Structures are given as structure tokens and as C-alpha cells.
């Protein structure tokens, strides 16, 4: 008696039970690629949070069934190729201008779902003016803000959100407030603006945080129906390559250094019921 016969693998009934057709049925699926994510291999570094953030956007669009009503705006930065991975109509903006581009789209297509996806250099340095005014006007869009405290695409220079003492290629001795000024908590600033309907800070470093981040992104889409103002979702995340850390070390740094300065949680939640 061989091994297969011993465990019943040769048995016809058992063969049927374990066939591909019998396993791949809806009730057995616990995890799959969202249909709104393309098959293009992502260019992101191992351990980077961008991939998870993209996936959450794709999941949210799929779940809400709004693929045919959603337009995204990609930034300049590591996520410049976001449009390669999301199976939706997208526009690639100039550096810092994503929220102005999103404003233009939303104003002429007020019933569509519009979001911009921007990094810290894009949103909080070169694009601060557009960010503040888009939020203050209360455009009915979602801004997704990826804060990893560094310029990723250009090779690890200081970002407006780089922590005090944190090293980068342009703060080789650590960020010195005297020389480089303070890290900018732009999300706290934005939460004060009357045009902002929803403002939250989430992370994608563990399953619990991923679920919360997804909820936030779902909110950012759903709240656009209410036409009550802008949704701002900061995702505080890591950059293993430019932090010069392994993915695990970078997650530790994220929890021990980044999160105390950029604490997770809602900064502003809707006070109405959306009527």
C-alpha cells in the first residue's frame, strides 16, 4: 500500500472533494486580489506601505461598486505610477498639485468620486498651498496622505515630516531644528479647517491598523455622497530603503518613533448624520 492510498488520495470520492473546481467556490474564499487592482507587478520596495495602501483603495472601490465613477490623481513621488496598479481612470499631477487637479476634476464632475494620493514632500512641502486651500474650500474629495517622513523617489532626502534627529541624505547628522526647522504636523493643521469634514490618521503596519485604514478610506469615498466637505486620511508609514532598515526594523521605528509624534486616531469626525 503506497502513501497516497493510505491517506485515501486515490479514492474517487476524495479526488472529487479536493478538485480545483470544488475548492475554488465563493464560500471558501478568504483572500483574493481585488478586481480593481491590475496584474502589473508593483515597483515598491519590500516592506513598503504603499502596496497595502493601494490594495485598500482597490478593495474600497470594489466593495462600494464605484469603479465607473471614480477618478484618482497620482502625485510626483514614489506613488507616481499609482495609475499602473489601480484599474480606474487616473490623472498624473505635477509635483504638489494633486489636490488642485482633483479640485478641477470634481468641480466639473460633481457626482463622481475623486481622490488624490500624495506623499509628504508632495502634500506638505511643495504643495502646501494647494493642500490648505483645497481643504479649506471643502472640496468634496478625499486626500490620502502617505507620511513616511522622507523623500523616497529621489533617494532619501529630508521631508517636511522628517522627525527631529532623524537621518536622511540631507540631514546626515540628524534633523537639527536650528538648521532645518521643525517637522510639520500638517494633519493637525488641516483638522482645524472648517472645510474639512473628516480627518484621521491611520497606519498599515499590522492587521488591526490595516482594517482601520480601510474603514477610513471607505469613509473618504462614502462621505463624498454627503457633499459636506473634504475627507483627509493620513497613513503614517515606513520607508525601509531610505530609512536604511530592514522591513521589520522599520516597523519598529514606525511604532516607537513615528507614532508617538504622529499619533493614530481620528482628528475630526462628522458631527451630523449626513442628512
Amino acid at each position, binding site marked *: 500500500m503506497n502513501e497516497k492510498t493510505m491517506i485515501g488520495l486515490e479514492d474517487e470520492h476524495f479526488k472529487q472533494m479536493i478538485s480545483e473546481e470544488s475548492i475554488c467556490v465563493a464560500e471558501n474564499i478568504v483572500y483574493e486580489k481585488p478586481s480593481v487592482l491590475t496584474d502589473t507587478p508593483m515597483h515598491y520596495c519590500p516592506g513598503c506601505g504603499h502596496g497595502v495602501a493601494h490594495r485598500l483603495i482597490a478593495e474600497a472601490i470594489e466593495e462600494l461598486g464605484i469603479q465607473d465613477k471614480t477618478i484618482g490623481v*497620482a502625485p510626483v513621488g514614489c506613488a507616481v505610477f499609482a495609475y499602473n496598479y489601480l484599474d480606474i481612470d487616473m490623472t*498624473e499631477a505635477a509635483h504638489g498639485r494633486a489636490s488642485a487637479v482633483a479640485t*478641477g476634476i470634481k468641480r466639473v464632475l460633481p457626482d463622481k468620486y475623486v481622490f488624490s494620493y500624495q506623499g509628504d514632500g508632495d502634500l506638505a512641502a511643495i504643495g502646501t*498651498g*494647494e493642500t490648505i486651500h483645497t481643504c479649506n474650500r471643502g472640496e468634496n474629495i478625499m486626500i490620502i496622505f502617505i507620511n513616511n517622513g522622507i523623500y523616497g523617489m529621489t533617494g532619501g532626502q529630508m521631508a517636511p515630516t522628517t522627525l527631529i534627529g532623524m537621518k536622511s541624505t540631507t540631514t546626515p547628522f540628524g534633523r537639527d531644528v536650528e538648521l532645518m526647522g521643525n517637522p510639520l504636523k500638517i494633519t493637525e493643521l488641516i483638522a482645524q479647517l472648517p472645510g474639512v469634514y473628516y480627518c484621521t490618521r491611520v497606519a498599515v503596519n499590522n492587521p488591526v491598523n490595516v482594517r482601520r485604514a480601510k474603514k477610513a478610506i471607505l469613509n473618504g469615498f462614502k462621505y463624498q455622497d454627503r457633499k459636506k466637505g473634504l475627507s483627509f486620511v493620513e497613513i503614517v508609514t515606513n520607508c525601509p530603503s531610505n530609512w536604511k532598515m530592514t522591513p521589520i526594523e522599520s516597523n519598529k521605528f514606525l511604532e516607537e518613533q513615528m507614532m508617538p509624534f504622529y499619533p493614530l486616531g481620528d482628528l475630526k469626525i462628522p458631527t451630523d448624520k449626513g442628512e
Partner: protein
Amino acid sequence: MNEIKLMKGNEALAEAAIRAGCDGYFGYPITPQSEILEYLTLEARQRTGMVVLQAESEVAAINMVYGAAGTGKRVMTSSSSPGISLMQECISYIACAELPCLLVNVMRGGPGLGTIQPSQGDYFQTVKGGGHGDYRLITLAPSTVQEMVDHVRLGFDLAFKWKNPVMILADGALGQMMEKVELFPQIPRKINIEPWATVGKPKERERNIITSLYLVTEVMEKINLDLQKKYKEIEKTEIRYEMTGCDDAEIILVAFGLVARICTKVAELAREKGIKVGVFRPITLFPFPYDELSKLSERVKGFHVVEMNAGQMVEDVRLSVNGKVPVEFLGRMGGIIPSVDDILQALELNYAGALL
């Protein structure tokens, strides 16, 4: 019978934008063209539902235009010289992404903050580039308030025909002065959806992406070659110009915009003195009427270019004439409009010998 009104240039242009079925205007105040934004804010929304938004800067305004143009709508912005300088980066993106839109520059004197008086100092910026990379703007140069109206409709048509930004290059005097205009009837706003537009991807089509980023060098070169091919086609088909009294002329005055009208008066006075002068007015500055000027150079004694700058279009006239006959130049700067006397004197001085 079309409606006839006495209107200020800027307001006439704004009125034409509403009537042309414009879907969105994004702008920022700057003298001498703020009336465009003001007029549209007052009139547009209630009449056609057109979006009018005062942006926080010219940089934001042009990026709003970029986003909105990507949805295939008829959108526009306007500004004056320093504001147009601020927009150049995004104009380059729009040209590369091949999006239709209408841009208006009511020029004022520069460089720097300069003056709020009229100028034609942005000719180079507009027709030779302005932003980075090899791209062209179809450029229309109105010379009357009537053309401020007509070029809006023409501009939108050309923008969509060629999927290219179109610039109306006016000046502060045209923007501020009042003239009689005939207004075309209201054109309905667009309802058709452009196949390339970012409006939300239905299941059955590929996603539409608006970008100007192509990291593979061969792909980026192909994009450039395709753009150049388009510009060549535009040069073949879209040249517009006006000739006044050129048939028997010995000297041709070449000027665009408002200056061409002054030159028409100069030509009249010159003819009274027995000097046969004609006026050649390029209406499109890109594409530029090189061949037409070249043909004229076969049978005239010389050209005299007049501009409100230090000599910009004159370079293109010289390219056309290619040394066959003299090309003289008169320019006033700093917001000064050359007078009829200025031009007549320069003409007589420069061509005294040739005309004896």
C-alpha cells in the same frame, strides 16, 4: 441677427466664453484682466451652470484646468504676464498630455512685476515654448474686441480638433478698451464624452490615464515625434493672417494684435505721401505664416516690423524673408503703445533711400 453690444475687451471675452458653452473657468485676479473672472462670477453660473472658481494662485488655477480638461470638458483660464509665467510648468504637462483647453494672456509690460500697461513682451514665451520641453501652443492674436470674442469660439474648436492647448495672446489695451461687438448665439454645453477622458472607467473599456511621464527613453522619444508630427500638421492647415493693401505695396508693415491696427492708419497716411505701404497681420502666431511672408519678400522693397517689445516676432519675419530684402524694426516697451507718428517717422527714416 446676432446681438450687438458695446463691450470692454475682457468682458466681451468672458461673455464669449459663456456663449461658447465653456464648462469651467479657473483663474486668479491680476491686472489688467481681472474683469474676466469678475464677469464670469457674476454671469456664468446662473446662465449655463458653468463652473467658475477663483483659485488660490495661478499655479493652482492652471492645475485645476489640467484636471478638468482631462475630463473632456471645455475649460479655460486667463491671466496676465507674471501669472502666465507661473503657469508654465503645468502648460507643458497639458501640452504633453495633449489636453484641449483655452488659455488667455492679456499681456502687460515686463520683465519682473513690470507695469500694468499693455505689452507684447510674451511673444517668445508663448510661441517658442515658455515651459520645459518641446511643445507648441496654438496661438491666436486678436486685434479688436470683436476678435476677443471670435477667438474664444475658434480657440475651443482648435483645442478640441488638435487636442492641444490654445493661447489667446491679447494685451492690456485690448482687454480694457470698449468697442462694438457682435455676439454669436449661445452654444450648448458639451454632453458628449470624449473617449480619452477620465470620467470613471466602465467595465468594458480600458482605463484612461492622463500623464506626461514615460521613463523608457524610446517611448518618450515616440511621444515627442508624435507631437512634432501634429505640430507640422497644424502648420500646414491652421495658418491665419490678414493682408491690407499688400497687392501693390513696396513696404510691408508687419505687426500683430493691437499694433497692426495702428499700422493700418500709418499705411493710409504713408500712401497719402505717395509711399506704397501695406500691412501684414499674422492672426496665428503659432503656426506662423512664414511662407506667405517669404512670397511677399519676392516683390517688395522691404519690411518694417512694429511690436510692443524689444523685437520678438521680428525674428520670425527675418526667418521668413531670409535676407532677401531689409527687415527693419520699431519697438516700444514698458507699457508704451507706439503712436502713428512713431511708426511713420521710423518708416520714412529707414526706407528714405530705398524709396527715392
